[in-house]
């Protein structure tokens, strides 16, 4: 029986990454390399105001004094920033109507299962699509505009909503924050900007879809989401990339600002190319995501991380305001040679602040998954509450699950709870399912979905089904 299982394991880990195609889109791109000239070119290419270029150059100066972080539980080949292409864009990047869109590009979206046209009509999800370095399509802008909601590409935002961007960009993640945040600030090319005015509840899901297409390019997108007083928004992002033998770098920054009484729900389904079964290729995913909550505000991060060769990502909340709430719900799946070091930081500054962390790690193949989380209760945070639950599910003999929880409490009134479990899918569970006629592959999918249910149910409906399927695909045949 053991050998049969190994056979299934081998067969299925060969399972092709289904988004691994390359689209033949005419692209304009820069030469590889990172220097002030390239940064100026990026800025001028995008018609940016001078303050933006100055900001980028300052970030570049900061970057040169920094080194890549090495504290994570990850083995990474050194990344040569000079070998990366920092700007690549479909030649005709922006369209007024769908009829003008390059048919190849539309085909790409159809293959990815997102028909922009259908999205527009049926699902009621407004999407912004970023291919390589630029945003190529944003839907539903007019409907949103009536409510005063701004949802557009970062380039458009810098041009048309300069003051808002200037005020908030870097306010949550300054370029001095870390190496990859500095890199992003220097070279970011596009991303999404979203602004919800005071008291407005955004009537639809806002969504951005990221796609790396060109070889040798990095993707450095920047997302900024500002929710004014008492507003409410749910935002989702998805991402895929072609299969390539090289490692592609993705270093994004996401900043959320939840002003008094505002609520932001931010969901991610990350499915960058994870590399092949021998560990070749795959996206290096270094992402800084952070939100700040003012009084009575709430930020909720939900992430399903199944892709990337390397994931380094800690969506965090600064609970600055009194009575503010931070949440982090995560499923991180690693298979083959994938490595993930992910978790969150909950920084409690205000009084009566609350945070909840639910992290579910699933490790298969020869992969390694780590949860790394910090719960910090500042002296000022009277009556702060935190509950953390970190579970790991191991599949097979050759993977590793690690948990690194850090708790720092400087206020005696705080209550911080931490629970952790490590488990395996038992042979008894598998046999039980199989006896009912459910084959091994499906049984594993079912059991893992059950294990991740607490997190999956936090996803918006539109994404929940997709995420469940994704989990099944990522783990097919991974019991060895």
């Amino acid at each position, binding site marked *: *029986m053991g050998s049969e299982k190994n056979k299934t394991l081998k067969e299925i880990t060969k399972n092709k990454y289904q988004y691994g195609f390359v689209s033949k889109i005419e692209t304009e791109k820069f030469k590889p390399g990172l220097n002030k000239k390239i940064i100026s070119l990026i800025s001028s290419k995008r018609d940016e105001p001078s303050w933006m270029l100055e900001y980028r150059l300052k970030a570049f100066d900061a970057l040169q004094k920094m080194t890549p972080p090495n504290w994570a539980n990850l083995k990474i080949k050194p990344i040569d920033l000079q070998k990366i292409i920092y700007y690549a864009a479909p030649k005709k990047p922006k369209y007024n109507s769908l009829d003008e869109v390059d048919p190849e590009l539309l085909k790409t979206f159809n293959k990815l299962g997102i028909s922009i046209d259908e999205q527009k009509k049926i699902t009621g999800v407004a999407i912004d699509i970023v291919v390589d370095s630029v945003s190529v399509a944003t839907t539903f802008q007019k409907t949103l505009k009536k409510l005063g909601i701004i949802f557009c590409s970062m380039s458009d935002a810098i041009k048309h909503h300069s003051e808002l961007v200037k005020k908030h960009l870097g306010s949550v993640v300054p370029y001095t924050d870390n190496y990859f945040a500095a890199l992003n600030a220097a070279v970011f090319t596009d991303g999404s900007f979203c602004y919800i005015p005071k008291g407005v509840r955004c009537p639809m899901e806002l969504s951005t879809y990221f796609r790396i297409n060109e070889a040798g390019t990095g993707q450095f997108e920047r997302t900024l989401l500002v929710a004014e007083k008492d507003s409410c928004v749910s935002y989702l992002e998805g991402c895929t990339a072609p299969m390539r033998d090289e490692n592609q770098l993705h270093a994004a920054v996401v900043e959320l600002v939840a002003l008094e009484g505002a609520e932001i729900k931010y969901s991610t389904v990350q499915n960058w190319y994870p590399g092949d079964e021998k560990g070749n290729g795959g996206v290096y995913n270094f992402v800084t995501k952070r939100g700040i909550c003012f009084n009575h505000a709430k930020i909720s991060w939900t992430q399903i991380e199944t892709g990337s060769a390397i994931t380094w990502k800690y969506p965090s909340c600064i609970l600055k305001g009194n009575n503010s709430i931070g949440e982090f719900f995560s499923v991180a799946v690693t298979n083959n040679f994938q490595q993930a070091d992910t978790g969150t930081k909950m920084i409690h500054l205000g009084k009566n602040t609350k945070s909840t962390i639910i992290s579910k790690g699933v490790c298969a193949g020869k992969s390694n998954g780590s949860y790394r989380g910090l719960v910090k209760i500042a002296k000022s945070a009277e009556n702060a509450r935190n509950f953390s639950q970190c579970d790991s599910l191991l599949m097979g003999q050759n993977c590793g699950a690690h948990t690194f929880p850090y708790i720092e409490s400087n206020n005696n009134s705080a209550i911080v709870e931490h629970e952790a479990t490590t488990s395996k899918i*038992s*042979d*008894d*569970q598998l*046999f*039980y*399912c*199989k*006896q*009912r*006629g*459910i*084959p*091994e592959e*499906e049984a594993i999918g*079912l*059991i893992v*979905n*059950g*294990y*991740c*249910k*607490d997190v999956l149910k936090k996803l918006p409906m539109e994404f929940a089904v997709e995420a469940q399927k994704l989990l099944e695909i990522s783990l097919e045949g991974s019991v060895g």
Partner: protein
Amino acid sequence: MLKIKNLNVSTADNIQILKNLNLTINEGEVHAIMGPNGSGKSTLASVISGDPKYIIKTGEITFFGENLMELEPEERAVLGLFLSFQYPVEIPGISLNNFIKTALNQKQKALKLKTLSPKFILERIKENAKILKINLDFIKRSVNVGFSGGEKKRAEIFQMLMLEPRLSILDETDSGLDIDALKIVAKGVGRLRNGKSSFVIITHYQRLLDYIKPDFVHVLSDGKIIKSGGPEIAKMLEEKGYEWI
């Protein structure tokens, strides 16, 4: 439908459990298997349904002419084999409802039949829940998680009714059940007893057999069937114990 010939079975650490066991079950028959603890009753149930924990040394098991030993447990299930587990397994986060739907549709898929509509499944769920006096809220709970002993067994019988197997093996389904629950289990079996479906009832006690009348009773001891006959054997065992044989 089920033929077992000269079956020898061991555990992974080579302890022989079943020794030259022979058993034939025809369509529509109910067989009770009794015997002292450790005689191999549960092992027999597990081996028929394909539990990889046991190693078949020699012998044959066929089900409707198919060599069961070449089939995966799920393939056996699709052929119509069902095991009511002695110790049902917990699957956190998956509702009984979702679980049974998945099982039904995987079976349809394996048989290259159309997916059953949620409406159709719901009707069947309601119908069977009523027979077993199961509250619909119970169906929404995670499979066997936090179920009492009685609830677990009832959930097993519920799955049996949903899957409509051709051969059901009830492994000590009556253990730990009160008299009302016992009647409900018997009712469930009665529901499927239509002259075509067959049952193997593994039990320690005569009392279940008061409600489910077996056609045959076998006594298993030290891995062998040492006595076979009609319901009278069960009565004798109840009165005199295994010493009698």
